């Protein structure tokens, strides 16, 4: 076995052109797969980051049934004092939670003293909100970003700013229905214009939570949603499962569940796009694997054809068919290893260079987004193993052909 190995390695070294050609093809295949995985992964992570960090958070907790009726922003489905305490207590036990923010979501009439329109609002505690949605402040197109929001101020969505011709510093009035059916109004100063993003809550305005309470005449503790940011998004499934177990199982006196826990994936339509990216990655992987397969097979068939005379000779002088087969398969295997190793090294270096040079690009209104491609060890190992297996598979048929060749016919071949 070792002898065949030595011979195969020597043959690769001596048939330099062929070896270079094949391993370059393999290298190209590996590099394109790995770079594609890492770059598309980076885009995906970036987009997910944009979605979660500028509004959605990673996990949201509501009172059971809230999301189903979120269009009407019902105040009677808010979480109340004891329920909030329970959630806070459970969140404190949970590792992996970076921050959370409690929001009151409400609908109101928005008036600039000339015209009136509807507005959807998130009322937040600015310190908590900024920790939970760190990119939120970046969505403020005009106005002060520092401290996000103070009592008496409002961040209005871009569309309303344009539609109602309202500028930063203008005074406006919000009028809202309270839970008991009465109506209350309150003056606000426009602090800034908030850029719209796609997805739930993406076109909402924002006020301070204390203002929401006075506007809605809420004098107890009450919130519509608790948005959670994790330290590491990769831990999402684990944290979600744990919260789901603890909160989802809680029942009220009527035996109905109290809470509902959702991940961003469940809430955002972008999750489907992310899934499509995964699917696309998968098909591109398959295509590249097919290309590698066909190229190696092609080169191996050529190699066998070119070396018919050599095969005839070694067969005539008594080399056993399985050794001839082993020789050719090993040559394919070694070329696979060579091409894959070089390809992996080139890919990793390229990824490192891309990270070092801080390639930035613009995406919609977002400018200066940094591409930071990464690749997991499992992906690398998986691609390497697949390509090497493919290299062996591709050389099986030609090797088998070589092994079965009749020495007389092979020797006659010129």
């Amino acid at each position, binding site marked *: 076995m070792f002898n065949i190995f030595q011979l195969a390695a*020597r043959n690769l070294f001596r048939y330099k052109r062929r070896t270079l050609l094949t391993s370059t093809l393999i290298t190209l295949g590996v590099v394109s797969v790995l770079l594609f995985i890492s770059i598309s992964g980076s885009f995906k992570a970036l987009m997910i980051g944009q979605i979660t960090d500028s509004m959605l958070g990673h996990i949201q907790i509501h009172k059971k049934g809230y999301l189903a009726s979120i269009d009407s922003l019902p105040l009677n489905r808010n979480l109340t004092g004891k329920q909030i305490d329970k959630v806070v207590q459970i969140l404190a036990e949970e590792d992996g939670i970076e921050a959370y923010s409690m929001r009151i979501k409400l609908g109101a009439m928005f008036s600039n003293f000339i015209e009136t329109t509807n507005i959807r609002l998130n009322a937040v505690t600015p310190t908590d909100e900024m920790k939970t949605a760190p990119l939120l402040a970046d969505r403020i197109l005009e106005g002060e970003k520092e401290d996000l929001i103070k009592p008496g101020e409002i961040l209005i969505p871009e569309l309303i700013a344009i539609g109602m011709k309202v500028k930063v510093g203008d005074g406006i009035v919000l009028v809202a229905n309270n839970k008991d059916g009465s109506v209350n109004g309150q003056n606000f100063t426009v602090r800034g214009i908030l850029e719209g993003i796609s997805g739930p809550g993406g076109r909402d305005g924002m006020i301070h939570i204390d203002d929401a309470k006075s506007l809605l005449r809420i004098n107890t503790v009450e919130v519509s949603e608790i948005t959670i940011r994790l330290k590491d998004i990769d831990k999402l499934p684990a944290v979600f499962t744990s919260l789901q177990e603890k909160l989802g199982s809680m029942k009220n006196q009527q035996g109905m569940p109290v809470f509902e826990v959702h991940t961003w994936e469940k809430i955002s339509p972008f999750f489907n796009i992310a899934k499509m990216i995964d699917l696309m990655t998968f098909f591109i992987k398959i295509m590249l694997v097919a290309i590698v397969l066909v190229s190696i097979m092609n080169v191996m068939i050529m190699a066998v054809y070119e070396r018919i005379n050599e095969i005839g000779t070694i067969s005539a*002088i*008594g080399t*056993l*068919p399985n050794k001839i087969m082993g020789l050719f398969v090993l040559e394919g295997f070694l070329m696979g290893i060579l091409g894959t190793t070089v390809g992996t090294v080139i890919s990793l270096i390229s990824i490192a260079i891309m990270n070092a040079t801080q390639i930035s690009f613009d995406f919609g209104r977002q400018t200066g987004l940094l591409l930071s491609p990464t690749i997991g060890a499992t992906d690398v190992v998986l691609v390497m193993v697949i390509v090497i297996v493919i290299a062996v598979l591709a050389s099986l048929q030609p090797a088998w052909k070589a092994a079965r060749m009749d020495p*007389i016919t092979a020797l006659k071949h010129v």
Partner: protein
Amino acid sequence: MSVVVAKQLVKTYVTGDIKVEAIRAVNFSVEPASFVSFIGPSGSGKTTLLNMIGCLDPPTAGQLQVVGQNITRLSRQDAARFRGEHIGFVFQDFNLIPVLTVFENVEYPLQMVQSWPREKRKTRVMEMLDAVGMADQTHKYPSQISGGQKQRVAVARALVTNAKLVLADEPTANLDKKTANMVINLMKQMRDEFKTTFIFSTHDPRIVDNVEITFALDDGTLQKLEKSAGGDHV
């Protein structure tokens, strides 16, 4: 005991409706350490006969015994094993492996056919290259040496495994007369030194002068030629 015994040996090629009787019921035997040639014009059946003796092609009918073993019916695998153990080959086109050096070509059978340890291989290969006068060219590739030198290397490769029988099908056909004689003399010298039986074929009557036993092949039939004193039979 004879190295080769052929009894009523027949080889018929059938391609479509055409039947070619390449060897027609020949009988002969070859004794150990003898130096034998089959001579005959092109198409007379030399290659066919040597291929059968060399276990590369099974006979259609008759009996064939080589180094005491009946090889009339052997599987591919057994035939390959038999060749690797007992028979050395020298080819008309030299058939050295182009990407291997002189040394590596001679070493090849010891590495891939028989599994000799590295050090023993080295000693043995150098011994054989020395015997054929190629010890100073070990690192050259086949493309860097002459035809005569290639055939010397081929002889070394055929002998390196201690084969009892070396078969050479027209080993001189691609060489000029002087080199051809040199190669024949080398093979004879090797026979003397290693007591290996040599069987070779040729269509050139001029080079069989110093061959001890000559069989004439004509259209698949065999006739043993008696050695003439002056060696001037033409």
